[in-house]
């Protein structure tokens, strides 16, 4: 720290305390803004409930746990939509892909696989998930091929895809709903059994904290090695401390949400236990789909920030001609990006159909709009070249919070649509203002 080469830039100029803080911590102001918006939405809905309905339902363990599960499928797809939008394309077909992959997986695990493997065979869900994701990736790749190699605009290809695959989802089982799905597969959608419990959540939380510490230390070591300016120690401690506090907070939250009495009864009976007096408190812990989303988020972030692939995605978005002149195969990249988007839609199809415990042809209707909105609210620029994975996931959380909050305080569907639509437009407008000011 005393090395003159590693002086802290924050102490050099006389800036306001806020600016100094931001500079030293190197926090993205957009990220802080999103947290602010989220806090506003959560508190607003909660206290609206407290004041007008005599009950604040939003900031309860139960609601927040449900919110996390509901965010998963949109969040998973939003991470892929970031890449699509960064490269100046759009994918309107993701909702329909959720439908067609969900339906195909439903038929596969209920009608086809049990006939060969026997009902309840543990291989069923694995084969189903792999084939579902592969189907999504294949359809996505086909879209990408039409866009990149046949020169049809992405808007048109995926608008066509929206209709084609939604229709296919209907035809697949003549519009009939398939339910229930494989019992193991169902766990991927959450629910009391589809969560990792108290101990599991602590393990996840501790691993996450170790990960944060490792990132902080290795980032610092890397900067030292190349003699770049270091963040001041207090900023390092603040940022990593805040991140770890959020992780621990999330663990405490999901662990404070107990199984409902009915499920506890079922569980104790099945395992030959007796419920002690005063009831048995069994925590939900993190829901499996939330962990899937977290895993996808981490992998996609690594992909976008640490690999050549991610670098090329940004380069294509910034200047497609420059990318091509730098030897990047833009067409092949476009195909791969759409294939990835399709695979993520397939994964979202897994989560969505597992959560409903059924495959219906209406699965994922209007999801494309929520996914695009999540990416855009999360700071992905429709002009291309700019966007982050964590932003899109937060964007999905914002969208879902609005939706859930309005349901809780009893707004009509029509009002919900008006609010969500207005928020989207407002968010992009604010984003424009933000970009102009920071430029």
């Amino acid at each position, binding site marked *: 720290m005393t090395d003159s080469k590693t002086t802290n830039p924050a102490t050099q100029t006389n800036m306001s305390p806020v600016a100094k803080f931001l500079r030293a911590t190197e926090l993205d102001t957009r990220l802080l803004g999103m947290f602010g918006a989220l806090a506003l939405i959560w508190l607003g809905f909660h206290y609206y409930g407290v004041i007008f309905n005599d009950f604040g339902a939003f900031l309860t363990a139960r609601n927040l746990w449900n919110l996390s599960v509901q965010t998963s499928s949109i969040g998973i797809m939003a991470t892929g939509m970031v890449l699509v939008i960064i490269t100046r394309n759009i994918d309107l077909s993701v909702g329909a892909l959720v439908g067609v992959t969900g339906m195909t997986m439903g038929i596969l695990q209920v009608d086809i696989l049990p006939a060969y493997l026997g009902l309840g065979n543990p291989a069923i869900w694995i084969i189903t998930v792999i084939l579902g994701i592969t189907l999504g990736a294949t359809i996505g790749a086909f879209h990408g091929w039409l866009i990149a190699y046949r020169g049809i605009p992405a808007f048109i290809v995926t608008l066509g895809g929206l209709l084609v695959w939604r229709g296919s989802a209907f035809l697949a089982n003549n519009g009939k709903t398939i339910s229930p799905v494989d019992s193991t597969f169902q766990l991927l959608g959450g629910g009391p059994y589809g969560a990792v419990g108290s101990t599991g959540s602590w393990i996840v939380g501790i691993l996450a904290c170790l990960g944060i510490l490792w990132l902080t230390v290795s980032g610092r070591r890397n900067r030292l090695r190349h003699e770049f300016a270091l963040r001041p120690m207090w900023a390092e401690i603040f940022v990593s401390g805040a991140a770890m506090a959020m992780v621990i907070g999330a663990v405490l939250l999901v662990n404070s949400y107990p199984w409902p009495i009915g499920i506890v009864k079922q569980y104790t009976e099945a395992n030959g236990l007796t419920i002690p007096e005063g009831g048995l408190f069994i925590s939900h812990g993190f829901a499996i789909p939330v962990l899937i989303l977290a895993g996808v988020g981490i992998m996609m972030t690594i992909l976008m920030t640490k690999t050549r692939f991610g670098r090329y995605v940004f380069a294509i978005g910034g200047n497609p001609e420059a990318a*091509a002149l730098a030897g990047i195969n833009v067409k092949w990249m476009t195909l791969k990006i759409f294939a990835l988007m399709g695979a993520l839609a397939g994964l979202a199809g897994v989560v969505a159909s597992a959560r409903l415990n059924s495959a219906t042809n209406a699965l994922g209707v209007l999801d494309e709009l929520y996914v695009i909105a999540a990416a855009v609210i999360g700071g992905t620029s429709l002009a291309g070249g700019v966007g982050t994975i964590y932003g899109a996931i937060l964007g999905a959380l914002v969208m879902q919070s609005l939706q859930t909050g309005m349901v809780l305080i009893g707004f009509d569907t029509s009002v919900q649509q008006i609010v969500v639509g207005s928020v989207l437009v407002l968010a992009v407008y604010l984003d424009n203002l933000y970009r102009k000011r920071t430029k």
Partner: protein
Amino acid sequence: MTDTNKTPLVELRDMSIAFGGIKAVDHVSIDLHAGEVVGLLGHNGAGKSTLIKCLSGAYQADSGEIYIEGKKVNIENPRDARAQNIETIYQTLALADNLNATANLFLGRELVNRFGMVDEGKMEAETRKIMARLNPNFRKFNEPVSALSGGQRQSVAIARAVYFNAKVLIMDEPTAALGPHETQMVSELIQELKAQGLGIFLIEHDIQNVMQLCDRAAVMKNGQMVGVENVADVTEDDILSMIILGKNPKKAT
């Protein structure tokens, strides 16, 4: 001047390319030797940039052959050109505006660590090294290049071309957007690179620059080569009349 009996570093033979019936480049041949600067002149639309883009892989010629050090090569895309150590500084600079200097410098050739992840720290350190040489005042390493001035952007584009041990350098109007001081820096750089044995194609409108920097001047008009002359043997007026009239005064006499 340059020893023209040796095998040329680059030889373009009988290159042609047409866009929708318009012959942008019409049976043009030109060569370039190591340690030589060849200026390409002509009106806008004369075919200079198009010819050079066939060499840099941005376009594929309809016909014609490219020889590098006497060996025939196939250049179908920019990657092929880079593999032959042919580097290009485009008139547009071809920078991704949303990325920083480091990302642009290594675009398409990122350094990766043993896990296959891009090695940001090492690339930035390398960028700092080369920029310290080319443009010592350059500080904005962590900002997108859209935030840089014209000269700074130019130096990023030049750094990209120079960093990877180029044998052949193509510069398409490298000083068009620059102030006098920066133009001077580019001129010095060209002379330095030439002394290192690089062959340079320089597309340039300013005839004085051509007279000062180039060994030979090639003039194009309407997609055809008007003539290639040793700069020492001609006057500015000779070159001007070649550009305007499309006739080689020496051949006429």
